[in-house]
Structures are given as C-alpha cells and as structure tokens.
C-alpha cells in the first residue's frame, strides 16, 4: 500500500476514529475531501478538508485539533511511504471543518519499468478522469462503538509531463493509478545536427576525394 492508500486510511485516526469515547450509537456522517497534486519528480502537496459532526469535532480537537504537533507526528507515521516536509493546519470552529496541507517528496512508487504508480484502495471507485485529473470516491464505515459513515472524495492531479495515465487492475486490491514521465536528459537536437554535419561532410568528402581518385585511375 502506498501514498493514496495511506492518506485514505490515515484519515481514520486524523478524524478521531482511534478512540471512541461516548456511548451514543446513532450513525454519524462525515465528509472528507482530498486533493493530491504531483509534480514530475513525484513531489507534491496534499490538502485534506474534513467536515465533522459536533461530537467528532470535539473528539478531534481534543486529540489533534488543539495539538497540531501530535497530528503532524501521527501523519508522519501514517504516511510512511513518503517523505513529508511541510505541514499546515487550519481550523474553522464555526463550520467544524479542518484543512490540513502537507508537502511531500517521493509520493508515487517508481516501478522497475520506469512508470510511476499510486495505489488506490480497492473500495475507491473512479468517478472521472480528464487525463491529468482523476477523481475517486468511496463511502467508508466504522462499525465500532461509534458507528460513523464517511463520504470520501479524492482528486489526484498528475504532473503536466505525465503520459499514458491509466488505472490498472481496477476493483482489485492491486488497483493503481499508473503514469509515465519521459526521461529527461539529453536533447536530440545536438544529436541530429551532429549526424547531419557528419553526413554532409562525408558526402562532400566523397565528391571531393573519391571522384578525383576514380578519374585518376
């Protein structure tokens, strides 16, 4: 499991699923939105927006909202497959909404065939894709002492250089968003110019030397 999956499941702790305190068993519904923007090096930024019920908001604030250091520590554990470099948390007590931004490096997995791969949890369904932007959605349920439904939407924006983006093995545990970045490096202009000059030079040489030899014989 890698980046998106970790983000996805990481939400449960970030949302306060880790501890059930009260005993009310009526199911609550929460909304979770994530945008995941990648550059050609596999670095990028993720932005989470979670809207909580009143009770969840209270729990979340106790666990993380008033202790961003603990949330940051927790996210670094959850998102182990990436190198997290920056963190920002904003809370809106009126809307009971938190927005968390994390910058990371080394998000997608580099496959041996040169492609980049982002694991997508099996239960996440593709809603749409427009080449660069892919949208997935799922409904998660926690059935412990605190039944909670969570509507989740994840938007993945691939780098502009991404080619051949596709969803591999959809609907399986190995579902993954895969794309390729053309290998940067040597431009072909110098190669073509050099080859052209060489060919022209050889042609001129043939005209200048070979014909003379032929006629001399």
């Amino acid at each position: 499991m890698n980046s998106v999956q970790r983000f996805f499941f990481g939400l449960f702790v970030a949302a306060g699923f880790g501890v059930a305190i009260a005993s009310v068993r009526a199911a609550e519904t929460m909304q979770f939105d994530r945008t995941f923007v990648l550059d050609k090096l596999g670095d990028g930024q993720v932005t989470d927006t979670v809207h909580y019920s009143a009770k969840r908001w209270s729990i979340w604030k106790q666990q993380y909202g008033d202790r961003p250091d603990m949330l940051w520590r927790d996210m670094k554990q959850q998102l182990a497959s990436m190198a997290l470099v920056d963190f920002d948390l904003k809370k809106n007590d009126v809307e009971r909404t938190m927005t968390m931004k994390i910058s990371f490096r080394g998000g997608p997995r580099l496959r041996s065939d040169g492609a980049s791969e982002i694991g997508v949890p099996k239960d996440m369904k593709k809603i749409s894709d427009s080449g660069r932007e892919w949208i997935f959605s799922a409904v998660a349920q926690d059935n412990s002492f605190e039944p909670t439904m969570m509507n989740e939407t994840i938007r993945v924006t691939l780098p502009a250089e991404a080619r051949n983006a596709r969803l591999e093995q959809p609907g399986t545990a190995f579902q993954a968003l895969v794309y390729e970045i053309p290998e940067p490096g040597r431009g072909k202009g110098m190669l073509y110019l050099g080859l052209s000059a060489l060919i022209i030079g050889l042609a001129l040489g043939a005209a200048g030397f070979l014909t003379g030899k032929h006629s001399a014989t």
Partner: protein
Amino acid sequence: MSPSTHDLPLYSDQKPVSDLENRVAYQFLFPFILNYKRMKPSLRNGAVIFVVAGVCMLAAWVFSGASPGKLAWEPPIVRKALMSFAYKVYANPEVAEGRYFLSKAVLKNTGAGPIRDLAVSYQVPDYIPWTTPEVTDALPAGSTLVKVFYPKFPDKVSRLANQTTATLEIKLQWREREGGPLKEEVLRDNFTLFGVNEVQFGDTPAEDRATWYDVYSLAPFVVCMVTPNDPVVKEYAAAITERMGGSMAGASQKVEDVIELMKATYDYMVVTGMRYAGAKGLPETIGGENQEVQTVRLPRDVILSNNGLCIELAILWASIMDQLGCESYIMMVENHAFTVVMVQGQPVPIECTAITPKAVGQENPVPFKEAYKMAVKEFQQAELKIPLSVRQLQLAGYASPELPDIDIDKIKKIIADRGNAVPHRDPVPPHPVAAQYVHPRGLISFDYPQNWQMGQPVPQIGNTFYAGDMNSKANVQLYEVPNVNDPRTAMNMIVQAIGRRGAQVSVTDTQAQGNVYFFQGNTAGPGGYFQWFGVFRAVPGGVIGITLGCPQANFEGNRALFNQIIGTVHFKQ
C-alpha cells in the same frame, strides 16, 4: 582566332572526361557542373569542416548525457523496539496504514543526471537474511525515493523469553551514470526485540504526551495476544460449554444465550479455581508514565497457571468468547482492563477480576450478576477508555503469533481434573424491595428497591415519577394519562408523546386481565435500546400505571426483580 563553341573544353583542365562523369554531371549536378573542377578543393575543405563539426556535436551530445547522479540520504529512521508476539503486525504494511514499519530510508538524487540501477535490500542478522533487492532502474535528478521496511520475522522470534538487541543492516547499491562503476553502502542501526510476554503500551515520547491516550498509543497490539484458535483455549472453551450442556450463543446471537454463556464462563472460572493474580489484591496499573512495558502472559499460560492479571483475564475472556463465536472487546480504562461482549449492538461488560472477591473489595464470592454490574459501572463511569474490538482489529492485521506445539492430552487432563470441582451456587439474594411509592391521591402504590435513586420525571409524556439504578439503568416509571378510560388509548398517547421527543417506542404485546392491562415493548432512543413491560388500569380521572425496564442486554437478568415489583402494585378500586 577564337575556338568554336562546341570545341570548348568542359573543364578548365584538359583531362578527358569519362562517361560516368558526364552522366553524373549532366543529370544531377548540372547547376554546379561548370565549376566542378574549380570547386574540388573547396569541397574537400568543406568536407573536413563538416566532419569535424559533426564529430564535435556528437561528442558534445554524448558527454552532455553523462552528467553523474549523486545519491544522498539521511540516517534511516529505525523503530526502537518491536514486540515479538506481534511480529506479524510488523510484517504487514496494511496494518494501521503501514505505520508500524521497522525502518524508513529516504534517498535523494542530488546530482545532475539520473542514478542507475539503484538497489535496496536489508537484513537482520540471526533472524532475516538479505532480502531480494528492490531495484529502481533510474532515479531522475532531483527525485526522492522512500523505502519502508516491513520485516518478515520467523516464528522463532515469538519464543524470545527476554528482550534482546538486534541489528538492522540496509544495503544500498547504485551507479552514478549508466555503465559506471557500482557503488555500495551498508547502513546499520540497533533495535530492541521484546520478549514474547512483554507488551509495550505506547511509544509516544514522554515529552510529547499530553493525554492518557498518548500513553496507550500501541494499545491495539494487545489484541494480538487474543488467541481463540490456540488448542489450549479451545479445550478450555469446550469444557465451559460442556458444563452448561452446550451453547448456541455464537450461532443464535441472542442476548439471553450470550449472557448465559458469559455466566457459565464466569462460574466455570470460579469453580475451577481461576484467580486474579494481582499482588495487592487490587487491579494493577497497566502502562502508565513509569511503566511503559508490562509482562502479559498469553491465554494458554493463564489457563495453565489458573491465574491472571486483569489484562490477562480480559484477553482470556476475549479469546474464549471469540472461539465460541461471540464478538468481544477488550476495554482499556484508566489503570484497568475488562472484557465487553457485544450482542445485537448492546455491550455486555464483565469484571473479569471479580472471580477473586478481594480484587473487587469483597469478602464473599461475587456472583456473575454482580461482576456484570461492576463492569457496567466501570464502563459508564470511565471517562477515558479504549475499546479494542478483537474481531475488527484481527481482521485489520493485528494477528496472533504462531504458538509452539503443546501436549494437548496433558492439557485436556488438567482441565478435566479442574472440572470435577463442586458446582458454584449464586449466594447473593435478590434485590431487597423495601422503598414504597404511594400516589398523592392514592390511585396507585408499589414497592421498589431501596437502593434505587429518584430521577427527574418527564411530565410532557405523562411521566410523573421515576426511580432507578444508576448503574444498570433498571427503572420504574409512573405514567398518568388524564381524561381517558382505556389503558390501550393511554398507552398510544404515551407512545406518541415519547416519539415526539425523538425516541421510538414499539409495543410488542398487550394482554388484559379484567380491568388491568399488561404491555410489553421496547424503546430505542439516544440512551440506547431498552426493553420494558408495564401494567396500567383506568382509575378515577384517567389511566395510571407503571413501566419497568432496562437496557435490553440485561433485561432477563432483571426480570425476577421486575416481577417482584409488579407483585406489589395496588390500584385504587
């Protein structure tokens, strides 16, 4: 004299021209043909210039692509300690979003060109040989590669009796340019492997702890010690069900069946001499600021020694219940742990240590019902609690260790010998019913337990009196509905009034004996799911009656008490 036009030589020199030269010259090179002979030196010079320029450009192209990559890294993060009984957890990147990795290495290419053939592998000498290298063909300049290690320790690690130091070695191999020499580096760090009975409840650094939950950040690992499939646990569970003549609790999932099974389990433990093993006769501290690692034995060891600490008994209970098909939780509260069995959405807790009366401040044997009440009280009063669902967590990867083989015949004999003990009898009499309610106008009177406390009635629904047990939530309520003379109509009005306040009441049975009506039903609301029955009758000015109810999980346990109370009801004739 000037020569004629056709006598003019084609070339400035006077050499004869071959047929081939003529064909080429006329057919393809006509525009230049007249000056061909004169251009020959220029062509040769141009050829040299173009060839040299071409070679230079090709060389520049070749060398521009050979900028080397440079691999950089910080010291890998290595977990300080692993619990050996949970070795399967550390091997599984799916558990808890992969947070329980042994190590994490962040590699970055800080060079100008790609790094080639980057291979990463690791070993833990004495436990894990070098792993198959994970190879990245090309790591582009500026890119970061993160490697996280989830080691697959062999079963033998769960046989470690004491903590020991192990070493993680990470091998990096790479080329800074294509076809370049292979470079290699081995990074090392030590970590601790705890003994199989050592539980680390949390790994939050002391300076980062702010709440009780921070101390128990690794609490879910306790579920790894729940071993329902251990042959020893199976034999123990079989002895319990055999003693009660079989149990359908797991299959039926009926509240009464599950409670019967729990009672049989509790009684079996008492009868067979299972003891709470706390040194002071009180629930011991688990975890805590100064006790991050505690020795906790697996259920088989608790069964064999026939004693256990609160956390050990809670784990044993969970193992038995799971083995018999019941969903259980280990409830960790401040300085204590007990088991909760979940049936039809209702939690049924049990104070596991009550098998030893002194553990719960009693002198005489504590019957199951009291042990249940104690747990209910703890459950309700604990502000800090962590419910660990055995089923959910084990499905999520908190797997039990592979246990060493054991002489099961010997176990059977030990268990059978214990089963010959004298059956336990419930020594506690029913609740004393001593307090009495008398209606101000004498319309109704009834008795109720003197230890029940008066509660705030809700006149908006016709409720004018409330008394109940704050722990078990068993209660009696008086209802008065004026200006009607049919108890069924009165009940409908009460149902509607309660419905308007957000709860749902279902009347499941109605029976009449003369003027007296008996009702049974249940109520689902924010406070939970209650079962009740009531008796109502028309009196001067309306209908009056009482209901007796409690959470469905313990309704059967209270039925005798409720019948006692019903037997004391007197209506004004």
